[in-house]
């Protein structure tokens, strides 16, 4: 097997272009390279919009201040896809993601500047929209390394991190196999939903013939803040979510809890992280007819301020030993805040980055709504420790986990490289 040179993607591969425009692509000018793509070039030059660099030590979209919208997609590689095809796909995705996150169209030809006889390279719905803080984050699922029947399709089984494995069964699991797992994933976050959808749509198109979507999820209303500059948002239970989340401004905790360190596992993962997604359906009808007092006892915080029931304001540390006049615990022992707190989980913390979802309604006429939970952690064991601890969570009466997936998120790409290149070195 030939090892490809680590070269900067200078445009979409012919395979990637085939996905876009078919065999007659010869006339399309390829992009000017990743470095050039970084230059901010918002359409009309008027967009007052955040641009996050795509290249760096770590992938963007993790400690980046959580944007308002999400489009997440998990992919399975097509039968017959080779190691070289996989590498080429990652190079194509890197090239396209670098452009898209800079607010550019997916290629230079884009939506309207290509051949009138060819379908446009770019699908066009983001024309006129700024970058909108778009980040695109790539991950590798356990089945990329070894299929369920043990096949090493791409010669990378030996590089699989030991900890990258399907998550164990947890209380409240009602998993639907069709909304979990996946060989690859892309998390696209932006402040404009159309920009996030545009990214997933175009990246999926590039992958046609090599990989296709296994499941995907739209999210709105970030349910966590990942920066102290952000106000704490609310989830669909109406409570503030993520008050005690890991914040980018706390580099010590980020380093200890989020980034894979040298020696943690295979070298190619150093600087990366592990991504867990859990699609959590909320039984909001039952929740909505629950007394306010019980809602607060279930969460362990007040609904208005978000303060712990032991008193204080939102950011006051909860005092789990505090008792009331009658000697009762102010924060119930089965409350969510107590069971999820690092003092209950052996110090494990997660960087949460979830979003609300409402996927229409179910067959019973109830909103198919909930939280698309996303967390990043240095080791999957952190998530497992927290989730195991939540087995007796009072909140479980009102939620079901219907989707589950885990991915290894490689470190960021250099301007001369592509995402995940260390895996193939």
């Amino acid at each position, binding site marked *: 097997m030939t090892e490809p040179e680590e070269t900067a993607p200078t445009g979409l591969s012919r395979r990637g272009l085939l996905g876009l425009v078919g065999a007659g692509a010869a006339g399309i000018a390829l992009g000017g390279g990743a470095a050039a793509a970084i230059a901010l070039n918002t359409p009309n030059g008027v967009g007052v919009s955040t641009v996050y660099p795509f290249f760096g030590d770590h992938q963007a979209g993790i400690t980046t201040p959580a944007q308002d919208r999400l489009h997440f997609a998990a992919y399975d590689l097509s039968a017959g896809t080779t190691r070289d095809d996989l590498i080429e796909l990652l190079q194509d995705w890197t090239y396209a993601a670098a452009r898209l996150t800079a607010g550019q169209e997916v290629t230079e030809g884009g939506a309207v500047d290509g051949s009138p006889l060819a379908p446009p390279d770019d699908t066009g719905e983001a024309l006129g929209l700024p970058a909108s803080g778009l980040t695109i984050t790539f991950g590798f699922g356990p089945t990329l390394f070894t299929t369920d029947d043990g096949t090493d399709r791409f010669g990378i089984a030996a590089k699989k991190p030991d900890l990258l494995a399907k998550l164990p069964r947890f209380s409240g699991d009602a998993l639907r196999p069709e909304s979990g797992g996946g060989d690859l994933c892309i998390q696209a976050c932006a402040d404009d939903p159309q920009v996030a959808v545009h990214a997933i749509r175009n990246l999926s198109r590039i992958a046609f013939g090599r990989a296709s979507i296994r499941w995907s999820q739209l999210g709105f209303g970030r349910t966590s803040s990942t920066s102290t500059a952000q106000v704490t948002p609310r989830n669909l239970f109406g409570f503030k979510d993520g008050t005690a989340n890991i914040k980018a401004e706390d580099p010590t905790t980020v380093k200890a809890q989020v980034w894979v360190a040298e020696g943690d596992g295979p070298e190619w993962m150093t600087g990366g992280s592990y991504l867990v997604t859990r699609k959590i359906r909320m039984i909001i009808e*039952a929740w909505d*007819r*629950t007394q306010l007092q*019980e809602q607060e006892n279930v969460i362990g915080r007040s609904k208005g301020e978000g303060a712990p029931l032991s008193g204080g304001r939102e950011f006051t540390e909860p005092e789990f030993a505090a008792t009331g006049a009658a000697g009762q615990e102010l924060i119930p022992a089965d409350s969510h805040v107590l069971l999820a707190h690092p003092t209950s989980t052996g110090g494990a913390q997660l960087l949460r980055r979830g979003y609300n979802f409402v996927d229409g309604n179910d067959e019973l006429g109830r909103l198919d709504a909930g939280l698309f939970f996303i967390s990043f952690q240095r080791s999957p064991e952190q998530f497992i420790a927290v989730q195991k601890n939540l087995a007796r969570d009072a909140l479980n009466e009102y939620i079901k986990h219907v989707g589950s997936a885990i991915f290894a998120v490689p470190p960021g790409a250099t301007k001369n490289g592509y995402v995940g290149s260390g895996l193939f070195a």
Partner: protein
Amino acid sequence: MRNRILAAAAGAGALALALTGCVPNSTAGGAALTVAITDDTCAVSEATTAAGNVTFSITNNGTDVNEFEILADDKLRIVGEKENVTPGQTVSYVAQLGPGTYYTACKFQLIGAPTGVAEFTVTGEASAVSADEQALTDQAVTNYISYIKSQVAELVPQVQAFADAYATGDDDTARSLFASARVSYERIEPTAEAFGDLDPKIDYREVDAVAEGLDWTGFHRIEKDLWPPAEGALNSDGESAFLDWAPSTDEERQAYADGLVTDVQQLSDLVNAKDFTVSLADISNGAIGLLDEVAVGKISGEEDWWSHTDLYDFYANVQGAEVAFGNVKDIAAGKGKEGAALVKDIETEFAALEGLLAQYGSLDSGFADYSTVTEAQRKELSDQVNALAEPLSNLTHTVLGLSE
């Protein structure tokens, strides 16, 4: 739901009830009625009496301890009872009864199904609902505790028979007893859940037990042996039904049967303990808690994943909710126009839900296999559960939070 009971119990101390004058003594309807009890009969001297304070002179002519009960017209809710009438003993018991249809019954050895159930009609004018809220509260609590005990008393022998059939490999008999043996349990589920570790041992589904790292025991473990999964079948969490599971050996069967009997006996010991009590909030919250059990677990068919007997549990949960509501509805109805309107709404929606469930069978004749209930029918049931649950969820506020 588990937390409702606990939270409400903690909050019960804050209950401020307006205490007003004494109980207006309505006139008694004349001489005492006599109740002649044997081990399997329960003869009341008259089948009709006038409303007011009704005196019963109860004599136990049988061979062991017995109890006399007055049931509401649902034959479930207890409106009065005299426990522990010993052989040869004659005791006097006074019940305050408004006009309506009741049932009288006895319970030999205080266990099993009621014996000698007979219709009992009370005629005349309703006396004004007692202005003494404390008296109503005490009555509601007393009667609800009696109801819980009577349900557990029915549960114990039913579980014994079911467990015996299963342990001896008489699967046809065990299958025929499974759904009915669960009915009494499902009627009082929030009470059992309040005892912490007991409900997980008796009634946990496989997926919950596995996920919490508990040994999986109880009704549903036995259910899976009796309705073994087909090859390739999935559990409710999407995992293979055969993951970490195999049909029980004879020894395991005996152990699961014994365990269930022991755990149900422990439940019986706990509710019969001297210090067992419930609060008014436990009762009203128990009503909505049972409805939420339906909305979350039964509608989806996850409860009885292998036997598809979900409609029995569904019906029993609804019955339990209605009994709990019935115990506090006089208090709610006394809370001004708002309270009266709420009670009426709840009664209307209960009737509609029961009418809907009746289309699928009854406890006596059996309910349809839930896998044959279509999505459209499930939606209709779900809509009616929601229609009832909305007003029912305001019951506790009305009972505890509104003044008259």
